[in-house]
């Protein structure tokens, strides 16, 4: 039963308000970073505190005020929202530690702006997670777009500014499409509340239905990097690595994917989509993205760009799972949201650590780096195994459910995509591990890891991906949560 509670609001407000002390203490880096970490801890604590209640079906909710007549500004921690908030806030905590090591290691400028934008982005991510209707969602979606802009252009080189411009152009188009779709939905059904099973009904004319669906796909698809709207993502790699890690594992792209889940499961509803068949378009787009993204990743020598294409491909796993509309497929999709977040953030952390320590960015320069940085590369290896979907890493659990979902939906053709892409994953990630450990290089002879601020978070995420792979329910009951979500959306037995 929903009950009124200030906790969801507090979880959004804390990271948002912490920007004030961050900006005020700009001359004292230690204090500033203490604020960041304190806020991150507080947010995680607030989010986790809601977990037991939500699992029992008690959903905290807060209606703040009317944002427009008949549309309230509501925050509600339903299972899916809580799931996303859990992932993003806990990874924010790790990223904060990592940022400290990275930013200091690189002697980056304007760190205050960096930490402030970071906090706002996280507030937007948590807000997004808890949004109870489309308009609230849209507001946080747009805040996120503009809060990440200073992060992308952080270096202020012409290349970074061009990248930022491209990033903004793409995501703004997406945001506007979402705005149009939201207004359209409102005029069709007169409500914007997210409801499991959807708010749109079957009596909408087919042309409007398709138009609306495609507009929504454009809106959230840009952020989710679904082809053909993906090309901002590799360009945005000019950002500092912790940003890439957070953008690609948690915030922006996951906001897009999360948007897909919301739109498919809570606006359209599975029955309406099954009826019209619009899901097939999305499933096919996602499948193409999965394979083409992997192929493009194979061709990249720049480590971060390779990871970026891999992200594009993996996000579409989630989209595919959601588009298949089955209970198991949904569960796979939701689990992959978490799995990919943890694995990809590990990979990016590793890339950043290598970069800080050795100033190398190309895959072909990685020969023997494992000798100098065994912990980093160990974590990298763990995450790579998971990305390829091999047990016992968490990537296996989610892919397993996806594969089951595909069979359940009765379209084995998508299975082929999954398998091909799994192989491609190995092809683009394993050689890096191989180079790092097996090829010797005169440059890397002794043990010399990056700062502990960086090594500990990445080791932690690496271990998490292993632990969650073996016992997905242990730390945060992610598995149970995912099952609840899938059941509520598809109305199945889960």
């Amino acid at each position, binding site marked *: 039963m929903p009950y009124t509670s200030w906790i969801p609001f507090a979880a959004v407000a804390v990271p948002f308000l912490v920007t004030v002390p961050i900006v005020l203490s700009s001359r004292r880096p230690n204090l500033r970073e203490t604020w960041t970490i304190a806020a991150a801890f507080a947010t995680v604590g607030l989010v986790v505190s809601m977990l037991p209640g939500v699992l029992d079906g008690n959903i905290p909710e807060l209606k703040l*005020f009317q*944002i427009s*007549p008949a549309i309230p500004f509501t925050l509600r921690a339903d299972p899916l929202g809580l799931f996303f908030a859990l992932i993003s806030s806990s990874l924010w905590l790790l990223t904060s530690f990592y940022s400290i090591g990275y930013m200091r290691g690189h002697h980056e400028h304007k760190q205050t702006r960096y930490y402030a934008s970071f906090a706002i982005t996280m507030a937007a991510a948590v807000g997004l997670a808890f949004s109870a209707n489309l308009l609230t969602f849209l507001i946080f979606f747009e805040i996120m*777009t503009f809060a990440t802009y200073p992060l992308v252009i952080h270096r202020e080189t012409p290349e970074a500014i061009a990248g930022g411009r491209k990033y903004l152009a793409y995501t703004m188009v997406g945001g506007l499409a979402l705005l149009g779709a939201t*207004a359209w939905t409102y*005029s069709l059904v007169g409500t914007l509340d997210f409801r499991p099973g959807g708010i749109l009904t079957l009596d909408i004319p087919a042309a409007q239905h398709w138009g609306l669906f495609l507009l929504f796909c454009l809106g959230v698809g840009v952020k989710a990097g679904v082809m053909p709207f993906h090309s901002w993502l590799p360009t945005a790699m000019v950002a500092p690595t912790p940003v890439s890690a957070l953008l690609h594992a948690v915030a922006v792209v996951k906001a897009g994917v999360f948007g897909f889940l919301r739109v498919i499961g809570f606006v359209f509803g599975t029955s309406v989509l099954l009826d019209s068949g619009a899901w097939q378009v999305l499933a096919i787009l996602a499948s193409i993205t999965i394979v083409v993204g992997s192929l493009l990743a194979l061709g990249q020598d720049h480590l971060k760009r390779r990871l970026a294409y891999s992200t594009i491909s993996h996000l579409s796993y989630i989209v595919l799972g959601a588009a298949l509309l089955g209970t198991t497929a949904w569960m796979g999709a939701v689990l992959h949201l978490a799995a990919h977040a943890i694995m990809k953030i590990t990979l990016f952390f590793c890339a950043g650590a290598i970069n800080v320590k050795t100033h190398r960015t190309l895959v072909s320069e990685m020969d023997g780096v494992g000798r100098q940085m065994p912990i980093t590369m160990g974590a990298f290896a763990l995450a790579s195994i998971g990305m390829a979907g091999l047990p016992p890493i968490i990537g296996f659990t989610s892919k397993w459910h996806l594969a089951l979902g595909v069979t359940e939906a009765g379209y084995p053709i998508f299975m082929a995509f999954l398998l091909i892409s799994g192989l491609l994953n190995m092809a683009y990630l394993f050689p890096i591990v191989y180079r790092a450990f097996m090829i010797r290089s005169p440059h890397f002879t002794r043990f010399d890891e990056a700062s502990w601020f960086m090594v500990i978070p990445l080791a932690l995420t690496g271990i998490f991906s292993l632990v969650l792979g073996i016992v997905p329910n242990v730390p945060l009951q992610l598995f149970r949560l995912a099952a609840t979500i899938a059941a509520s959306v598809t109305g199945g037995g889960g």
Partner: protein
Amino acid sequence: MVPLLGAFLASVLGWYRAKLAYTVTLASVGFSLAASVTVLVDVLRNGDVQYRLGGWAPPIGIEVAIDPLSAFVAVVVTAVALIVLVPSRQLMANELPAGGGGPYASVVLLLMAGLTGIIITGDLFNLFVFLEIASLAAYALVAVGGGKATVSGFRYLILGTIGGSFYLLGVGLIYFMTGTLNMADAARLLPEVQNTTTIVAAVVLITTGLGLKMALFPLHQWLPDAYAYAPSAVSALIAPIVTKVYAYALIRMYLSVFPPSYITDVLPISTVLVILGMTGIVFGSVMAFAQQDIRRMLAYSSISQLAFIALGIGLANSLALIGAVLHIMNHAVMKACLFLAVGSIRRQAGTASIPQLAGLGRRMPLTMGAFTVGALSMIGVPPSSGFFSKWYLIQGGIDASNWAAVAVILISSLLTAVYFFKVLEKIYFGIPEHSQNEAVNEAPAILVIPTWVFAIAMVALGVVNAFVVSGILDKAIGPNWGI
């Protein structure tokens, strides 16, 4: 009612005392604001207020009629004017030779008297008189800058007079057909004669006339020069409120003079307004992008934003009209903020040319912060107020099944982002040539604080927009206006 009239008298009185000009100006505009707020509360609680000047009953006497819409616009206009006036003295002193201040203050009072008169009057001819008073003051204010400003002021005068004369001609036609000049009376009598050529001509003339005054594309030629060459204090005052009041006059005409079916059925005026609005939005944005002077850029952006209001009127349903009226308020606040920021830039850095703004983000962080907030609101980033006027306009477009309009509104956000980010990139990441801006300091508090008041107001108005819409605008416009 009486207090508002008192304020109007006070402003005329203040005209005679040039020495205390600024103080008197501030005091009377402040009084005017207080009166408007009182009247607004009164109107919302007790219904419309009428006041008969000189005790003559309408339709013979001149009537002042205040409904929620006019009270709302009056509050917006006086509030924005008051805040802009606070730093105007510093801005004027910087850009004009000594002694230019006295006339400025009294002309501002004249302007305010004209504008409040337009807002509250219930009489067609009276509206013309106030229209000309306000315009005359505006011409004079623009021309105060001297040099180029005089030339653009003269152009403004010629085109503005054509607009005013067209309006007068239209009013004359209405008078000959109905024998009344009272708005309510005319609205009662017009349906009987609505299909005559004379009234059709009257509608066209009034629309053209007011369109010229509000710089509706393609009648906008006077605006860029006037805004760009006028002193900063003047553009910060004129840009936000003057054209908005004319837009309000246009809404007033359609809302309470002409029969509602008129602009949709009898004449294709709504279609014309929609098409002009759409063209104007795109045209203004593209031209804004091409400008090298930030004031000209803002001026073209005004043209584009006014076209939004015209589009909202043209869509002819309650939601779109709510969007249009909300945009009158939002755009007033946004433009005031942006022009004040530009005024501070000119004062501190002595330039308004975009390429020379490089690196000012670091030198004037507070001013530029406010400018950024204003720019984001213009783009329509939630939760700033600019987002919500677009939200209602889009809904209005969907309600009218006008998909092209919806698409243009959406795309315009992108175009706005393009030209504003061109400036923002320059301000924050541009590399200054010859370290020209190194000695520039932050503007004094008297400039920074009003600018930030507007910046904060933008976000606050966005957050409370539901209150404004359901509390005031719904009553002002009514749920079933138009088709």
